[in-house]
């Protein structure tokens, strides 16, 4: 944090009283002809990777290239849920490391990311869902994750608004409760990473679109952008939504299909929901923000698309499903809805690491679970770049697993109905 003043309660008070302008949070820099590392994508993954390169490994000649503005893609469109109660041991270990990093992120970045560990509750409405939940709870416990299956009585105690009677079409049979899970202010995570990376010397280039990737004799040389060409021995694809198109530029074929996922918020009401409530069967997750709005998320749309427009089908189905769970919410009005793009892989696990093009690395295929993974993705990708060794945590997520038949079937993902 060389140039920028640190944020503190005293500083906030002083500026509040004196009305002085806040300093610029990150700088605008000219595009240099070459860097040590080029990160494509100025979302939370790209920024976390750049930050970790500078912070953990002292690699600061790093450029982050963003087509629009920082955090304009999935980083600002997700429903900001953090959890680590996945199903595969690989997934659980990985997301738990991420959750641990999130716990200290505000201190590390000197930026309030408003992480609220209010507990995460996944509901089971069928015997099959309950069975998967028990399986998940056992995998979680083996990995020392706080996660257990609870019954309808305990659920009613946690969330009194939930209809746990036997009347609904999908009665609540039980739930997987994960106390360390919670929600966070997703834009603050983006801005905090951007500010910290900038302070360490990373160059953040917004409105800089990558139009081509130069590959010579199987090695990456650099990228072409709308602002000119730059060279670098390492190029990392940290995009979401357009990740397969960026890979196409380098001639790397990836098993990714892009689906929109829609979400909505209601008007703000007084705080009543202190837990994140998820139903895989009903394809809905509900949480209440610090402002009082209820955030609803769903499963991915039924067909692949790059469109981020909302549909009436989504609003109708999410409203019906939320009311199935909490009938008392009927008078609430939906304020707005939006869509983000999810890069789905065949096994619902990400693709991280090397590609057939030397020096061209990927951190893609984040489906519906990218935001919660950002700190650990940045940490491990930076370690891979700095040491040229694949960190153990991401060894299972390599691109070659599809050729070798080592798929990591992550049925704990939000997009998967049980």
């Amino acid at each position, binding site marked *: 944090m060389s140039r920028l003043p640190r944020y503190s309660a005293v500083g906030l008070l002083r500026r509040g009283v004196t009305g002085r302008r806040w300093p610029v949070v990150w700088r605008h820099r000219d595009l240099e002809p070459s860097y040590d590392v080029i990160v494509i994508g100025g979302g939370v993954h790209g920024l976390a990777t750049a930050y970790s390169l500078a912070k953990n490994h002292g690699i600061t000649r790093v450029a982050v290239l963003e087509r629009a503005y920082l955090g304009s893609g999935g980083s600002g469109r997700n429903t900001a849920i953090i959890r680590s109660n996945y199903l595969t041991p690989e997934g659980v270990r990985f997301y738990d490391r991420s959750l641990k990093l999130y716990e200290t992120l505000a201190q590390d970045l000197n930026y309030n990311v408003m992480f609220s560990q209010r507990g995460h509750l996944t509901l089971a409405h069928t015997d099959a869902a309950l069975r998967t939940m028990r399986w998940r709870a056992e995998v979680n416990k083996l990995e020392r994750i706080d996660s257990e299956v609870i019954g309808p009585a305990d659920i009613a105690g946690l969330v009194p608004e939930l209809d746990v009677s036997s009347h609904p079409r999908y009665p609540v049979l039980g739930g997987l409760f994960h106390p360390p899970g919670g929600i966070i202010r997703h834009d603050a995570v983006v801005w905090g990473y951007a500010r910290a990376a900038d302070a360490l010397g990373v160059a953040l280039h917004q409105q800089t679109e990558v139009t081509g990737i130069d590959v010579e004799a199987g090695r990456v040389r650099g990228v072409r952008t709308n602002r000119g060409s730059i060279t670098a021995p390492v190029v990392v694809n940290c995009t979401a939504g*357009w990740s*397969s*198109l960026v890979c196409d530029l380098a001639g790397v*074929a*990836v*098993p*990714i*299909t*892009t689906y929109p996922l829609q979400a909505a918020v209601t008007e703000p009401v007084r705080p009543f929901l202190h837990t994140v409530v998820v139903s895989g069967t009903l394809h809905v997750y509900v949480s209440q923000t610090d402002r009082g709005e209820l955030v609803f998320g769903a499963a991915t749309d*039924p*067909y*692949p*698309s*790059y*469109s981020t*427009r909302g549909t009436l*089908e989504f609003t109708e189905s999410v409203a019906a499903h939320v009311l199935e769970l909490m009938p008392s919410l009927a008078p609430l009005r939906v304020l707005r809805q939006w869509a983000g793009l999810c890069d789905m892989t*065949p096994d619902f696990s990400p693709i991280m690491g090397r590609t057939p093009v030397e020096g061209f690395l990927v951190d893609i295929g984040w489906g519906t679970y990218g935001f919660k993974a950002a700190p650990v993705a940045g940490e491990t990708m930076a370690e891979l770049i700095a040491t040229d060794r694949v960190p153990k945590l991401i060894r299972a997520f390599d691109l070659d697993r*599809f*050729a070798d038949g080592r798929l990591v079937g992550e049925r704990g993902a939000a997009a998967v109905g049980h």
Partner: protein
Amino acid sequence: MITCPWCGSRDTSEFAYAGEGNPRPDPATASPEAWRRYLYVRRNPDGWTTELWRHRIGCGTYLRLERHRTTDEVRLARAVGGDPA
């Protein structure tokens, strides 16, 4: 709305996406690499593309239709087994 060659113009929610419809290599002669491509790798384009849909709540026919993956416009649908005479 999608126009089914058998049923006429129907709401999109009656139809289900059924994949990119890439040609299946001969399992007896395909290399593991070609087979892997067929199984997993997708073109995932962001413009006009031809893909496979099924009239799920309708006649059940598989359709090959052209759709723009950014605007979701649909412009041509043909039944896979042949359109009605």
